[in-house]
Each structure stands twice: as C-alpha cells, then as structure tokens.
C-alpha cells in the first residue's frame, strides 16, 4: 500500500501518494492539465507553482514537474505571469550599458531585497544577474542566468516590477552575438561550402551503390 499525504490544490483537499510530483498529484486528483504543463521535465518553465506548508511562514516557489508533494502542502499554480518583453532588432542593438537603460530601465529601481533569488525555481542568483545587467556586464549576466527556464516566479515577487528572465534573455543574446569570440573555422567552412569545395565528394556519395556505402561506413576511421 502506498503512503498517502494530504495536499490542498487551490485550497481543496486531496489525498495523494507521497512519492508523486505536484504535477502528477494534480493528475492523480483528476485534473486534465492544459496550461501549466509543457516539457514535464524542468526545461520549459510552464509549471511555476507557489506553495506553503501548513504552519510555515515561508511561501515557497517551485516547478510542479520537479517537486515532490509533502503533507499539508497548499498549492497554487502560476501558469502565466505578465512579464514585460521589449521588442528590439538584434542587428541594431549594441553591447553597451545604454541598451539596458533604454529597454529595461526598471532594473535600476532594484532595492536589493533579494526576493527574486530566494524564489528562483532554478536556485539562480537572480539579484546578482540583474546587478550585472545594470552594469552592462552582459557576459557575467549571461553566465549567471544561463540555467533560467523563464518561469517568471522571480518577477512575481519583485517589488520593482522587473521582468528578470527577459532582461537575462537580452543579455545572453548580446553575449552570444557580439561578445563571444568569433569562430574562424566555422566561417571558413561556410565559405568552402559556398565555393563548392565538397561538391564532388558529396555527389560521389549520392551515386554510390549501397554495398560500397556500407563498406565505407564500416571501415571508416573514428577520431579518438
């Protein structure tokens, strides 16, 4: 017999097996999920959820697909949070501090309360990455925010109304496009292909009988 615990989904009590995730517990209770369920494995940020264990002062946040139920857990899903996403042309933004000032000026109103970091479902140092963004240190902001699943929980807790995941998204794109070192071997290869360098080789493969292709495959040299 499975051990059961009591959970309160939007305040209503259900008895569910203790080894389930919050997401599975909702289904066990009879919910057919549409909103609030995407990848089911911690990558998409669709399943942001807030909860409180009865008697605790702390309000906690998590991803429903990644978190086990506990006894007396009061659960509310947060499948959507109104983030602000500014529209910009990547070819025209420049990797300078001004761009943050222009697009997301509210980051400069951060009061340093650290509520975002405490709430982050991925345990990221959110306040820190916002501080990097303020300084226009996009590389560090990108690094610090890399594992962000854009669930929006941090923003739901922020007194300054910052849309953290969108700020980080801009920083990562700027870093990837403008600041990361250029890749020469990639550019060369694209050029070679455009010049038709491999055309003959490939065309030969297009014609080769299957037996010869097998021979080629089975005897190919494999890089150590």
């Amino acid at each position: 017999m499975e051990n059961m615990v009591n959970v309160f989904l939007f305040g209503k009590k259900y008895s569910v097996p203790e080894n389930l995730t919050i997401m599975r517990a909702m289904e066990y209770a009879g919910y057919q999920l549409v909103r609030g369920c995407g990848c089911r494995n911690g990558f998409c940020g669709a399943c942001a959820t807030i909860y409180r264990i009865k008697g605790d002062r702390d309000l906690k946040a998590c991803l429903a697909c990644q978190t086990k139920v506990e006894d007396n857990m009061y659960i509310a899903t947060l499948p959507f949070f109104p983030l602000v996403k500014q529209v910009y042309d990547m070819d025209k933004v420049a990797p300078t501090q001004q761009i943050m000032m222009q697009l997301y000026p509210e980051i400069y109103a951060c009061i340093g309360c650290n509520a975002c970091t405490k709430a982050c479902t991925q345990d990221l140092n959110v306040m820190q990455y916002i501080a990097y963004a303020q300084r226009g240190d996009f590389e560090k902001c990108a690094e610090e925010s890399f594992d962000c699943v854009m669930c929006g929980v941090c923003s739901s807790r922020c007194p300054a109304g910052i849309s953290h995941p969108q700020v980080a998204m801009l920083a990562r794109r700027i870093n990837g496009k403008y600041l990361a070192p250029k890749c020469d071997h990639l550019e060369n290869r694209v050029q070679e292909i455009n010049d038709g360098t491999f055309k003959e080789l490939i065309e030969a493969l297009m014609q080769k009988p299957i037996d010869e292709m097998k021979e080629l495959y089975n005897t190919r040299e494999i890089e150590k």
Partner: protein
Amino acid sequence: MYSEKFTDSIKAVEAARAKNIAYEPARMTAQEKEDLLKAYHPDYKETEFAELKIGPNKGERVPHELCATLQANSRINPSDIDLSKIDYDVDVLVIGGGGAGASAAIEAHEAGANVMVVTKLRMGDANTMMAEGGIQAADKENDSPAIHFVDAFGGGHFAAKRELLRKLVCDAPEAISWLSDLGVEFDKDKDGNMITTHGGGTSRKRMHAAKDYSGAEIMRTLRDEVLNRQIPVVDFTAAIELILDENGNASGAVLVNMETEEIMVARAKTVIIATGGAGRMHYQGFPTSNHYGATADGLVLGYRAGAKLLYAETLQYHPTGAAYPEQIFGALVTEKVRSLGAKLVNAKGEVFMHPLETRDVSAASIIRECGDRGNGVDTGNGQGIWLDTPMIEAIGGEGTIEKRIPAMMRMFGKYGIDIRKEPILIYPTLHYQNGGLDITEDCMTTNVENLFVAGEAVGGIHGRNRLMGNSLLDIIVFGRSAGKNAAAKAKDVKVGALTLDHVNAFANERKAAGITTDEVSPKLLPDYRNK
C-alpha cells in the same frame, strides 16, 4: 538517495571503476549489430505492429497505437464547420511552435510573407526545449560534410533519402552560423573554437553544445526572435484538420482553442506542419523523454489529407532514460554523459558494451543485458543498468560535471543523488519519431501541393535511426528551408474554394474497410488522470 538494496551493486561498480575507466570495450561488428537489433530492438517486435487498412500507406505496418490514431475518427463533423467564416487569413500558416516552426516563421517573415504560428501549448513547450546534448555540424578541419554524410547514412541503416541528407550536412555549418548570429551561446574556447564532442555513431567530434541546455538555448533564442519580429503566435490552439481547396491543395487548417474548445478556421496559401514527435503515444508501453504535446498530430493531419508517410514504423528508443527514481522515470539522460566518458556497467560491475554505439544498438544491448542475460539492477519499478557518471570527473577532472552537464546534476540532485559521486540507473525510453511525412528537397510533401513539413514530423532525412545532434540540426536546416520555400510559393498561389471533403472521404474509406472505433484523433494530449 539510494536505498540499501542498491548498496552491493554500487560497491561492485565502485570497485571496478578504475579498471573500467582504462578498459576500452570493442565495438560490435556489423553482423553482431544486426543480430542484436533483430532479437532485441522494439522496432523488430512483430506483435507490436498492425497493418494500416486505409490511407496512403495502406498495407504497411506501424505500431498499434499509431495505427489506431491514424485510422481514428475526426474531431469534427465537416458539415458543422462554416468555411466561409474565416478567422485568420495569411500567406503562410505554421502549425507548431517548436524549433522547426519558429525557424520557419522567422524565414517566412524575412522573405516578406504574412506568416502566423499556431501552437498547442505555449511557444517553446516542445521537444526542442528539452534537447540537452547538442547539434552536429562538420565545421572542423579534420571533418567534412561528406564524412558527416557517411556517419548519418550508416547510422540510419542506409535508408535516408540521400537528397535530404545532402541538404542536412551541407547546410549544417551555415545553420550554426545563423544561430550564432541570432545570439545562441555555443560552448567555445577563448579563441572562439567550438568545443565539440562525439555522439553515438559519429566518426568526428562535431557535437556543438550550449552546456546541456542546447535545445533550450536555441529554442528561447528563436522564440525571442519570433516575438521581436512581432509574428503573430496563437498559443493554446491546435490544428485538428487540414483544409484543402477544390484543387486538392493545402489551404489552411481547422483550429481548436485548447481551453475554450472554440473552433476556428485559418486560411493560408501554404501550410507548414511542424508538430514534432510522438513520445506521448507511449508505443509498446514505454515511458518517454518527450514533452506533453508529442502525440503525432502532424502525421494524422497529413495522412487524412492524403500525404504519405515514410518509415513511420521506426522509433528511436533512447538507451539512457532515467530508470530511478520513479519521479523522473523515462526522463532523458543525455548522451553527452557517455560522450564525456561515463560507461554502461551492469549489476555486477562489468562494462558490457562500447558506450558510444548508435542509439538503436545501445538500447537493444541494454534490453538484452537486463532481459536474457539477467544482469540488470532491480529498481522496484523495472530493470536498470548503471551509467557510471563519477568516471567523468575521474577523466575530465573535478568540476567537469557541473560545467558541462549542469541540468543532469540538477535533475538527480533534486532526489538526493550526487552524480559526481554516485552512478545513476538507466533504461531505454521512447525518444524520437524517426519516420514521418514524406517530403522532397524543397520540404513540400510528395503528394499534397502547398503542404510543407519540417522537423520531427518529417520522415526520411535520417533513415531508420537518427544520430544524436542531427535532429536539432534538421529542425534548423529544414525549418528555415520550409519557411523560405513556403513564402516563395505563396506568392503565386490563388486559393480556390475551401473544402473538408477529404475528411468525409477518409471516413467513408474507414467505413468501407470495416473499421469501427470510438477513438478520435489527433490525440492532442495524453490523459494521465487518476493514474
């Protein structure tokens, strides 16, 4: 945290670790692989397949669950749909908001088309978001598109359509360059050289990655670009039937709002199916690594409208799905774990195969080890094999795991398993739909005009098995191409009178074949209620 029952086996793994690290297991011969697959790979399990009785692939065998959904009833009664009341009227309609759909939308927009995306969940709630390992491209000195071609062709059992594969490998470096230019952060060294690794079946290290969030990094960047271009995205809206015009050309789709169930009509000059895979069909009862909406919808839409499927009977079972703990049963353990040096070890602490055979061979070998050979570990929820992750730190140095596979560390860490110090238990999981709609090099289906397909919904690019890293690649290469071609084609399309006659015709065929079923399709979402 591992309970006591695993202690003995873990000890055996630890005791053999140093020896196992040094040991270089032989690769299987072509003959050994063939015999192994025939005996143990799920694709060869005759009793799990049924013959299609109707539709363009009549007479061919596909998994029971796919057969049922392809031959099921439509969700609509065509006579209830008012095709003169058009809710959306566009040049290019993209169905599916994953990586293929987003790439297609961006390129169609770039070409000046009026393009719109409909997607079942949110944009990015998709298999693309979950890809961990990486994306292939032959861009290093010691590599070439021709070598990439041979690897992929052999890995797919010499069944790929060569003109599709040629396009995949030749456009690969340009695809990486396009992504970089959009701001995707690939792992690079300080000089800008890509840090690349092997994947199962590759003969050169050509796996590019963004840590083990490769797909997420690509997907969120593409999504951001779609939003920056202000391309309309209609989310929580599924396509449930294609609309043709009087000439039999694809001309739009019937849509349903997933929450309100409102039905809508979208008219378009060209349509792109980018609905992804089918893991949530749980073929043969396997768990899956796929996202919630992976239910083969695109195959159903296309099939009813007369488009042909290719290799729909071949599925990819990823060798390393999580077998323990139960909360993550079936979730993917990226192949990169093996690329970085972890080996597969049985209950007795023995390395029983080369860790980087192709996926189908690896999966079959694990099934054999747990089954007939009886060397699996009892997980309480089935069988599993050890993947000895601490080897990675021993080989690559302390910190390698945190730096290169943080998502894996986090996934197991949540359940008290520190993969830097403890091995993990794995078993094959349903991962990828190798087959799909049959297309030509321009991404249009072979027999329905103006119907384009890109991504996992396509069949034939990889043949009967796909190498890691070639799917993220195909969604970019073919997604972009579908977008460009659909936009170009839309320029001279005059849409005729809209019709759903093909839905009626298919129903008649069903009746004539004596098929009676209450099932409706596309399935849209699995039902896990009360389970």
